[in-house]
């Protein structure tokens, strides 16, 4: 061991166990009356923690104020590292060639100037709102994805090959049972010891009994084998988790609805433009999307991946070639089931008067409309369930139509 800290697994912004490198999913297969049509919908929610700079990822190069505001890190469609033009107004970061290809193939879409209902700038509260689905912070008992699962008809349990998630992200936390997987390496305690301990806990500490017995369900195929990530950077780990997750989700008895979280998007300083820190992370995200595409194989056809973040960053770069906490940002959709090839935006403009509180991209689309649209398109959830249970008190945020094929 040279320096174990160098090899530490990703931990999430919220600091839960192995959070950034873990994968959590619903423990059941959804059961649909329409299964006969051969469609087998899959949904992956990717949470980017730290607040993604939407203006640097999908740049409004056609907005006359963009280049001035984003200054030294602004993207351009010419130069040494040109951004990929999407529709004549928006251009995609050059570190995302896979997403660009999916977009060209109409299997990826961008929603721009989007935000949750949260209007302050604390990461932690912002993440709570994004993941809980409530209109304000402080409601962290369950996440919107979990409450959506509760509204779905429950079919068979996914194979016992997965344990309850080590660190289920809030978005998937709640009463609907979940399973998870994280790459770890450790000689395992033997079954007998484990069973004795579960027995002790049953008598003395039922909460620990429940936690441990769930944790022990990690299947034999995983136990005893080494699943440690290869030494590598954050980007390699993003790809690796996505690769593992995609393989699990591709199996016929594997999970259909899952969530991942990637950390590190809080680019206050030296964010970089077409190359640099954000470019590096976006390359990882792009690689993770490609891993889902290849790993899901012919199931990619029925898949939607939603990529969302707690809020955006300032429209104007700060004094250290980075961006501070802002408001409006982007959401990305990718997958064979996405009606893509579009940037969906009611563009607010970047004139000073049009910025939110004179500093941030003004949100014109409620992120909940996007997510509701996907949940409805993939799983036919009713407007009522979506606006009362999944996103409480959100009747005003109507599901966006036509996001899913």
């Amino acid at each position: 061991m040279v320096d174990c800290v160098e090899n530490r697994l990703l931990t999430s912004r919220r600091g839960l166990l192995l959070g950034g490198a873990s994968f959590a999913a619903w423990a059941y297969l959804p059961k649909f009356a329409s299964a006969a049509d051969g469609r087998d919908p899959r949904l992956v929610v990717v949470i980017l923690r730290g607040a993604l700079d939407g203006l640097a990822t999908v740049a409004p190069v056609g907005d006359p104020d963009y280049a001035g505001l984003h200054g030294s890190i602004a993207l351009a469609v010419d130069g040494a590292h040109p951004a990929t033009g999407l529709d004549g107004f928006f251009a995609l970061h050059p570190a995302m060639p896979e997403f660009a290809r999916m977009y060209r193939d109409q299997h990826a879409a961008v929603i721009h100037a989007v935000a949750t209902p949260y209007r302050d700038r604390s990461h932690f509260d912002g993440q709570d709102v994004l993941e809980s689905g409530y209109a304000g912070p402080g409601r962290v008992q369950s996440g919107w994805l979990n409450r959506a699962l509760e509204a779905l008809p429950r079919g068979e349990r996914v194979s016992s090959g997965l344990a309850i998630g080590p660190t289920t992200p809030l978005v998937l936390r709640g009463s609907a049972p979940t399973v998870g997987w994280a790459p770890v390496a450790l000689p395992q305690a033997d079954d007998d010891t484990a069973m004795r301990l579960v027995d002790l806990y049953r008598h003395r500490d039922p909460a620990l009994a429940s936690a441990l017995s769930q944790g022990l369900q990690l299947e034999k195929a995983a136990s005893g084998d080494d699943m440690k990530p290869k030494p590598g950077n954050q980007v390699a780990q993003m790809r690796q988790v996505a690769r593992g997750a995609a393989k699990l989700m591709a199996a016929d008895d594997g999970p259909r609805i899952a969530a991942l979280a990637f950390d590190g998007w809080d680019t206050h300083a030296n964010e970089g433009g077409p190359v640099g820190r954000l470019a590096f992370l976006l390359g990882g995200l792009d690689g993770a999307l490609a891993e889902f595409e290849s790993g899901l194989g012919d199931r990619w056809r029925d898949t939607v991946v939603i990529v969302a973040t707690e809020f955006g960053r300032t429209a104007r770069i700060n004094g250290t070639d980075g961006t501070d906490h802002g408001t409006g940002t982007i959401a990305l959709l990718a997958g064979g089931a996405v009606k893509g090839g579009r940037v969906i935006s009611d563009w607010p403009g970047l004139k000073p008067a049009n910025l939110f509180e004179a500093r941030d991209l003004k949100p014109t689309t409620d992120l909940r409309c996007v997510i509701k649209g996907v949940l409805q398109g993939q799983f036919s959830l009713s407007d009522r369930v979506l606006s009362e249970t999944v996103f409480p008190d959100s009747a005003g945020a109507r599901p966006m139509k036509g996001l899913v094929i």
Partner: protein
Amino acid sequence: MARDSQAALVALNRFGFGARGGASGDLVNAASDPRGFVKAELARPVGVLLEAPGLQSTPQLGQAAFAYQDQVKQAREAAKTAAPTEAPAPPADPKPDNQLRRNLSLNTVMTEIAGQRAEAKPAADSKPADTAMKADGMQPNAAAPPTAAKPAQPLNVIQKTFRAEALARLQRAVMVDCGFTERLVVFWSNHFCISASKGELARMWAGAFEREAIRPHVLGRFADMLKAVEQHPAMLFFLDNQQSLGPDSRAGQNRKRGLNENLAREIMELHTLGVGGGYIQEDVTSLARIITGWTFAGRKGQIGAPGSFAFNANAHQPGPQVLLGKTYDATGLAQGEAALADIARHPSTANFIATKFVRHFVADDPPPALVARLRDVFVKTDGDLKALATALVDSDEAWKAPLTKMRSPYDFLIASGRLLARVPEDPGFYLNSLNLLGQPLWTPAGPNGFPDTTAAWAAPEGMKLRLDIASQMGARLGPNIDPLDLLEFAAGDAASTETRKTIERAESRQQALALLLMSPELQRR
């Protein structure tokens, strides 16, 4: 007697790091005077300081890091000159596997994923185990801790420093009497956390930051700790303040750079007022301007000894600033110090700190009356942290609340080391285990530190990993240790019948020890 043992468990586990094994007599001492046992350490403020041979000051460490970085740079440039055409190898990018996955079962997939990692499997049996416990007489090769399969490379100065700092902290925690003040250090260090993952300087300074900015004030004043923290090079580096320039300062004008509000925001959100503590965006920006120029001297030492805190007047935003409704005149460094002193005294800060303090020591849902009392103590004593700790120990709630909090991974490992009476000689086992359990030392994922709730640490996979680690510790147990004796040391007659029976009936001493370490008596606090 049973009641006393119960109070002893509160003294040892809620407030301290657990009973030490061997001849310590901790449980008996704690049972005879539980409050006195906890408070004894509060009377020795100097005992909170940590000095060990070889531990250096922040400027010394900074200079060593700069020198190391210069060496690396020179070596790289020399290599470039030697082989100018050789481009660095691109990162491995395995070709996407487009094979269809029809009719593949999850079990097959899991096997496949596991198989793919096989080549990276650590050579657990062939490589000598980490010496942490072996050196103390445990069976060395029964089960090695997780180790990387890398060939041994010499550690660089940053890695060496990190490990030396870690070792000093671990040894202190394992040896100290009750551990209340060390628990306070851990609490405040997590409250004002930095992350070693920020970069080489952060890793180099992580231990020194705690020794210099946290420890001297753990039994002192909050305002002094706040100032020491926000002026420490490690914090300035971690939250980017060394890059923040006043837009109208000379440096800002010359370099066309300006504010970075990262540190200012976290000072108010995480260190003092808390979210909803009464500040708005303008206050964040204003505080960011106020603390422009708070930086550390770089390798050239133009504004001070390299690696030491420096106020760079050239980078400081000129003019008075309004923060939380009060105007702070342009007084240079003193402007920010005055602002911090006021924030430290703000009613929201008292409330935020009291709540977090009680949540850490007593319950995830802190009893409101206790929070209110500690808040009042904080206000009346102008943030006297020793008074705060004393009020906590003096409260009834802290002794009556059931032991439902879960030990954090760090707490669990230290408590195990104490019970086994093994003073670590190498930090490897602890550092590896902390990584696996999601609490890498001095490396939280964000500036809000590690979580402090039962739910976070009693998660299913976390429990399973704890059991795996407890089994490793059990497997390396020497034959001269009786797990039932250890249960006596740890809990005495407060141990449950079920736990005692579970340990008695274990099939081996090793299994018994794993079960003991995982028992509710050792996991809850």
